[in-house]
């Protein structure tokens, strides 16, 4: 029998070092995303003077406050939310390939958003946006849950991925159809479907932030249960963990976080796949440490990707999803091969 090292609540030396480094990195990338690649002439000194001597008449200060700050805040919300959603999904399914993008949860939420925003169905448009995307993500999650055979005891990792990919494709086609029917502006469709935070305001921050914070808190609270689940469903049961509880709450967390992220930014791809693996490399396997580490790393990743996307075709905007998708699809291929090599 393989021995299992119970994760210590204390951090190892490297993990502790990373927990100091991640917030510092976050502050650095936050600043970079505020001043980098701007059509206005912004620099670090503008940021400094904004902090120490705010001047309401200063154009740079106004640009930073009204355009850049909400964008960076949305980026952090979305990054942290998607990363932790991916982490919880990977923990719940014990499948390293799980993520909102691969399992079609993001595209389910995106379809709901598209139906609501295009006004194809009148009564859907009348409902609050967050509720609609929440239902979309929930429906997609439920479908993939049953199609992947998650309700049966042994979960086949490849089966659930294939089911998720097919659902993802179906939702994507339906979203495309809905958007084509409503509006033939291919450029806008493309930008939205790839996931973009190019023109967000404080309204989007107010929409996403409370739900994201709630989801992150719930995920942190689930950390111990996810640690138990890592031992396997049966052993978790023997140790007194509630399997049903962790699955229901975990699903709720995932759906909340994905719905919040998609409502403001569209389906930004593969963040939830990449970041948990980075998190494990940095701080180890303990979910109580992984949740905060992934939230930080996800925020850093989106901030960096958004800054990079702005620079791709400067001074025009590019959707942030393009950068993460290109990174993530390659990583998906790498993981799929490794997963198959390990499984007999």
């Amino acid at each position: 029998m393989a021995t299992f090292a119970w994760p210590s609540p204390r951090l190892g030396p490297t993990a502790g070092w990373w927990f100091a480094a991640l917030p510092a990195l976050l502050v650095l990338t936050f600043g970079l995303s505020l001043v980098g690649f701007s059509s206005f002439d912004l620099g670090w000194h503008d940021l400094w003077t904004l902090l120490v001597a705010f001047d309401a008449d200063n154009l740079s200060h106004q640009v930073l406050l009204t355009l850049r700050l909400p964008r960076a805040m949305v980026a952090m919300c979305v990054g942290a939310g998607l990363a932790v959603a991916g982490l919880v999904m990977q923990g719940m399914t014990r499948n390293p390939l799980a993520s909102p993008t691969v399992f079609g949860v993001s595209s389910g939420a995106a379809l709901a958003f598209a139906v609501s925003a295009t006004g194809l169905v009148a009564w859907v448009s009348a409902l609050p946006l967050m509720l609609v995307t929440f239902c979309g993500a929930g429906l997609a999650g439920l479908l993939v849950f049953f199609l992947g055979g998650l309700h049966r005891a042994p979960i086949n990792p490849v089966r659930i991925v294939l089911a998720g990919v097919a659902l993802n494709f179906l939702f994507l086609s339906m979203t495309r159809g809905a958007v084509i029917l409503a509006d033939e502006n291919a450029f806008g469709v493309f930008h939205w479907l790839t996931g973009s935070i190019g023109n967000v305001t404080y309204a989007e921050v107010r929409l996403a932030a409370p739900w994201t914070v709630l989801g992150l808190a719930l995920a942190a609270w689930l950390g111990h249960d996810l640690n138990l689940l890592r031992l396997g469903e049966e052993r978790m049961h023997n140790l007194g963990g509630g399997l049903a509880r962790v699955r229901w709450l975990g699903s709720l967390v995932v759906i909340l976080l994905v719905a919040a992220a998609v409502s403001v930014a569209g389906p930004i791809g593969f963040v939830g796949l990449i970041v948990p693996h980075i998190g494990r490399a940095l701080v180890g396997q303990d979910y109580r440490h992984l949740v905060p580490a992934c939230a930080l790393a996800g925020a850093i990743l989106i901030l960096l990707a958004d800054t990079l996307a702005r620079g791709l075709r400067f001074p025009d905007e590019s959707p942030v999803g393009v950068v993460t998708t290109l990174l993530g699809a390659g990583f998906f291929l790498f993981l799929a091969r490794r997963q198959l090599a390990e499984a007999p």
Partner: protein
Amino acid sequence: MTRRLTITAALGLALLALAAWHLSAGAVSIPLTELWQTLTRGHADYDFILWNYRLPRLLIAALVGAALALAGLLVQGVVRNPLASPDILGVSGGASLAVVALSIGWRQAPVALIPPVALAGGFASLGLLLWLARAVWHRPAALALIGIALSALFAAAIDFLLTLYPLEINAALLWLTGSVWGRNWSHLPLILPWLLALLPVACYLAYQLDLLTLGDDTATSLGTRVDRLRLVALLTAVALTGAAVAVCGAIGFVGLVAPHMARFLAGHRHLPLIPVCLLLGALLLVAADLFARILMPPLELPAGIVIAFLGAPYFIFLITRYRHW
């Protein structure tokens, strides 16, 4: 035998009926009674519409559907994998990426260059897949997973190119979802010769593919050169897919669904399967194009989206029924 003939004849009749509907429906509705007259003796009002818009579009949809279905049949026969098809294995994605790269890199590229480039992209992606999946070649679900991951990578690369060069985005996006819209007689030479040339190859391979279903060892002892057969059949399938992608973009799921339906109707021997499969592929794509046009006039959906409504649930059904994990 008679059952297969009956099925083939019934499918042919169904295709004819659907074709008549396809020709008559649209922004200008041509009554079925006038249709025959227009085709044979000409008609002042409908001549132009029929000969310049509807007929080439119908032919291209039918030919592309047939080519994709045949490619799917060959791939499933060789890989002996019910989840395999050119689009799931990433061949369509590779061909699309090559064509997008060509149209961005060389704006005035002659249209005759598109099929070879799509073909080259298809071959390259097949080679990449075989190299990446060399360890899991015999596990159907694993091969499908690698293929899907590869497709995701190609799709991401296409998105990236479209972001960098947004001027081409309108045409490319419509083309990428798989559409028969705006295709005319000039597109016919891009697909018809390929289908005519490769159909005999497929028929020639049919008997050997039957032997291959008995297993590699049995097929070898019965005189089949298994490795050569695999290579030739896969190359043929990729060529068919490349030609289809060159005309209509990546239309998913026809290559997956049509061979399954054909096997359900006509058994597992490949030679009688080929005509049934061709007809079913043509039927699927013509029907998809028809519904794409008449569901919400005057708007047109890309036919690829309509196919996805049928194909994605079917793929999911296959996964839930598949037992050999």
